[in-house]
């Protein structure tokens, strides 16, 4: 009977959880028992999964990594787990690609892809650069931005540089993502010796220091 399977679990769980979460857990277990097709492994359902191997629940694709360790021991395979294992099987002698490395690998691939199209020169704070940008809403003419790099924020593919210039009497600062496909050319014109990584002090200084012909 369903109820007989039901009861020992609740007996186990009752001392662990407080009175408040008890009705919630009961509801969840009732739900999952009614539909043995799927279970969502929550953190409190951890011991749940271990205990219920006899009931052979399938674990859905959105499980957290701790539950995945449990899943790998069990027989069932879901799509994401399958692709993980397939990816690992293909290059048999390479080290196993862990979950945490994937973003780093994708980042590097994206940087290499954009580097192959257009190489990025080495940019440092204090360089006076000229950037040619294609703005899709602007009649397909390349806009040219000149100025001094006052900061460079390294963030992989979203590495940005902040360019400052006095245009028509007003100081303008523009942040450009360096690996953007809209940027058609970056050229370093000059380099100014600075003793700082971020030149925010230029905002308070005379406009003469931020003008570039």
């Amino acid at each position: 009977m369903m109820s007989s399977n039901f009861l020992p679990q609740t007996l186990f769980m009752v001392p662990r959880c407080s009175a408040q979460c008890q009705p919630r857990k009961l509801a969840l277990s009732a739900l999952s028992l009614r539909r043995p097709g799927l279970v969502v492994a929550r953190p409190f359902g951890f011991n749940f999964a271990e205990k219920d191997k006899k009931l052979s629940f399938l674990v859905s694709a959105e499980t957290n990594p701790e539950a995945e360790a449990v899943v790998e021991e069990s027989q069932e395979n879901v799509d994401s787990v399958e692709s993980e294992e397939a990816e690992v099987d293909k290059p048999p002698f390479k080290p196993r690609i862990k979950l945490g490395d994937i973003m780093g690998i994708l980042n590097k691939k994206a940087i290499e892809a954009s580097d192959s199209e257009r190489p990025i020169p080495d940019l440092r704070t204090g360089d006076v650069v000229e950037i040619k940008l294609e703005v899709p809403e602007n009649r397909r003419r390349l806009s040219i931005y000149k100025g001094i790099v006052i900061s460079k924020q390294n963030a992989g593919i979203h590495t940005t540089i902040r360019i400052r210039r006095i245009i028509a009497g007003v100081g303008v600062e523009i942040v450009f993502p360096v690996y953007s496909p809209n940027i058609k050319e970056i050229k370093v014109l000059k380099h100014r010796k600075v003793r700082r990584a971020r030149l925010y002090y230029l905002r308070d200084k005379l406009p003469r220091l931020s003008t570039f012909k």
Partner: protein
Amino acid sequence: MAASILFRVGRSILGGLSNNALGASRPSSKSADMDFLSQQTRTFIQMRTNLKVVDNSGAKRVMCIQALKGKKGARLGDVIVASVKEAHVGGKVKKGDVHYAVVVRAAMPRGRCDGSEVKFDDNAVVLINKQGEPIGTRVFGPVPHELRKKKHLKILSLAEQIA
């Protein structure tokens, strides 16, 4: 005797120097705190914000009364309702007039769709009428691209420089 006088003089000089050092250190510690806070977080243009007028409509300074569109305030490219606080003598607008205006320069960074951001050093507007046409005939200073999307093409055509 001479040595003692020199010694006393030396001590007084040193005392003076140390006083100066103390005097200098107090404001410097304050400014160290202020340096941390002096990176101003620029925010929206809201009620009572003073803005510069950069066309030749006659107004010089304007105060925002209402930011149309936006619960927190107006940004670059938005339209505001403003009251003229200072005006040139004999211009098209007088002090105390209420007009619509479009923000053409804002100290708050505005993100663009390609991931870049623009930021100007001051807040400036151009006065327009209800239909969106500028009252003045010239616009001074740079204007951003964002006006194209907001359909303020006349201002873009009058501008000296685009962003």
